[in-house]
């Protein structure tokens, strides 16, 4: 099992880095969402002229927020599951069950990322968003209309990061089952708000 520890360490470093980056970007996205919606309220009720773009811009940010930070929640055990059976079973059987479920989840993710790729690169992604533009010259003369694929890429990136996390979790589970779990580098604990 020692042979697996090398890849696990590498994957941990990669995931640590990518997920920290994702978390930072998600924080920015949430802050922008708040500002954009407050701007919408201000323009609509105070200045009496509604802006066309805040609704879509905020949804853009919300989708990216989800894609960027959900993998970190998954890695830290933030995805709700009924783990009573796993706890009740003998250690080894429970471990094999957990491994099986991880592999099944990987299957979902693998199918998902394929469809996601064809969606983003496909026909639907080439349409432009309804109201989102980016300036492409310093003088703000020319504006580029953001295509929908930029928005759709959020879920694709999310799936890609989830796969990285899932593979790491699978490798860790294999070591826990057949090797010495104490060799594993520790993962951070969940620190998240909940809807309940």
């Amino acid at each position, binding site marked *: 099992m020692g042979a697996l520890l090398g890849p696990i360490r590498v994957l941990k470093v990669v995931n640590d880095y990518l997920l920290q980056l994702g*978390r930072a970007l*998600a*924080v920015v*996205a*949430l*802050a922008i*969402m*708040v500002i954009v*919606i*407050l701007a*919408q*309220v201000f323009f609509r*009720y105070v200045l009496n002229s509604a802006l066309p773009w805040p*609704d879509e811009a*905020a*949804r853009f940010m*919300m*989708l990216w*927020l*989800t894609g*960027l*930070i*959900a993998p*970190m*929640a*998954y890695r830290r055990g*933030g*995805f*709700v*599951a*009924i*783990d*009573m*059976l*796993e706890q009740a079973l003998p250690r080894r059987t429970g471990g094999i*069950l*957990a491994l099986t*479920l991880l592999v*099944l*989840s990987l*299957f*979902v993710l693998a*199918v*998902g990322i394929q*469809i*996601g790729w*064809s*969606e983003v690169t496909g026909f639907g992604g080439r349409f432009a968003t309804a109201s989102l533009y980016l300036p492409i010259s310093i003088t703000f003369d020319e504006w580029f209309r953001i295509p929908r694929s930029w*928005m*759709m890429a959020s*879920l694709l990136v*999310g799936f890609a990061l989830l796969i990285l996390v899932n593979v790491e979790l699978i490798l860790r589970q294999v070591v826990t089952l057949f090797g010495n779990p104490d060799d594993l580098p520790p993962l951070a604990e*969940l*620190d*998240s*708000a*909940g*809807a*309940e």
Partner: protein
Amino acid sequence: MLIWFLPVFLVILMIGMPVFFALLFAPGALLILEGQTRDLTLLYRNLYNGMDSFPLMALPFFMLAGEIMNRGGITIRLVEFSQAIMGHLRGGLAHVNILSSILFAGLSGSAVADTSALGSTLIPAMEKNGYTRKFAAAITAASSVIGPIIPPSGIMIIYAYVMGESVAALFLAGIVPGILVGVGLMVMVRIMADRYDLPKAERIVHHDQRISTLEYWVSFVLLRLNLGGIIYALTGFSGIRSERVLDDGTTIGPAAWTIWLTLAVCLVVAHLILMAYRKQVDHDFRMVCKKAVAPLQTPIIILGGILIGVFTPTEASAIAVAYALFVSFFVLRSMKLRDLGPVLARSAMGSATVLLLVGAAVSFKTVVALSMAPQVLADFILSLSENPLVLLFLINILLFIVGMFLDAGPAIIILGPILGPIFVEMGVHPVHFAIIMSVNLTVGLATPPMGLVLFVASSVSGERVETISKAILPFLAVEVAVIFLITFVPAISMTIPRLTGFVTP
């Protein structure tokens, strides 16, 4: 063949697959077995489109507002305020715990946040006052389920979105049931206070409190505006501002100066009432109340905005964030700039997992519709009985059992689309059914063996989950009774939304 996806789903859910993956795996696997691989794209698109929603945005915002409010300062103010009102009763701190939960529920929509915030201040205080630790933890956990019932409420936003109901209607429908749960618990505490001789407490914990000048003026203005606003609303009955019909049949509204003058008079009256009241109460009580004004304005802004019809719930939630930031940065000064990053990250992470779940639920729902599952299930349920009251009783038991094992959010996401249409078909109002489901599954957060709130109460108090589970039983009995009351007396939940016109009769 497709009908099998429901059993497959239940099995993989029970053996421990994360709900998000199970919601996608079961329908996906069966579509592949059926050879309908093209429909997999449909699943993916529904997952994406399910998250791409403006109404759903209220969820991250309310979570964020709750998190900001939760950062010190506000919890202690609510507790001291509740204590000033109810502390002197027998079983005082237990009553204070319940009242604080009711007030806290108007700021945050989360039972978990309620338990950890109130538990960490009140459980030690109750122990010092002579309560057993298990009792303190149990009443904290039991009263915290009020959080998601009184608006704002995360699970009601989820329900409204997945089922296509109005968030505003669900919010308004939750107010009375939430207060009812609180009152029920207080009655139970009263009974136990006689039997176990529960202690009283001081009404004022900290004497000679000071208040910053800014906070003084913020409370000063807010109190007068609120009271004046209420009086102004009452003048509507007097006819001063009513429309007049002219001779030629046209109607004119009141002149602008009448409105402003009435408002000014109302504010002056409010000021005089408050000044008269100030003479009646002692300094300490006044300070405690003054300090609670700024936090307690949050629910008034949220509900007021939605009720008057000015804001959508999403806009109200963004304004709640702005108000929470204003209060904690400038009025209470309980937050610093460097606290902002972690608070945003916590809310972002919580929102992301819930949003993925909601998206997955939307794709799950399409396959539920494609398969014959609802019809088969409806036939089965109707074969049990044709009396809606009996069926509601049975559904309550089912929801209660589900609530024992699953958190409220995922349970609502899974069961709403399957059960909702059946009961609406039988004549139960969609909003009423939403409240039945929400309250029932929320109480499930505090039921052993798998109660999220129990775990949090255990980690806050250091008491074992099993011990708290036993101590909470009398309170759970009260909550079950309230659930049945809500189920069989629709008026409890439906009156406010009907009166305000958010639900058509």
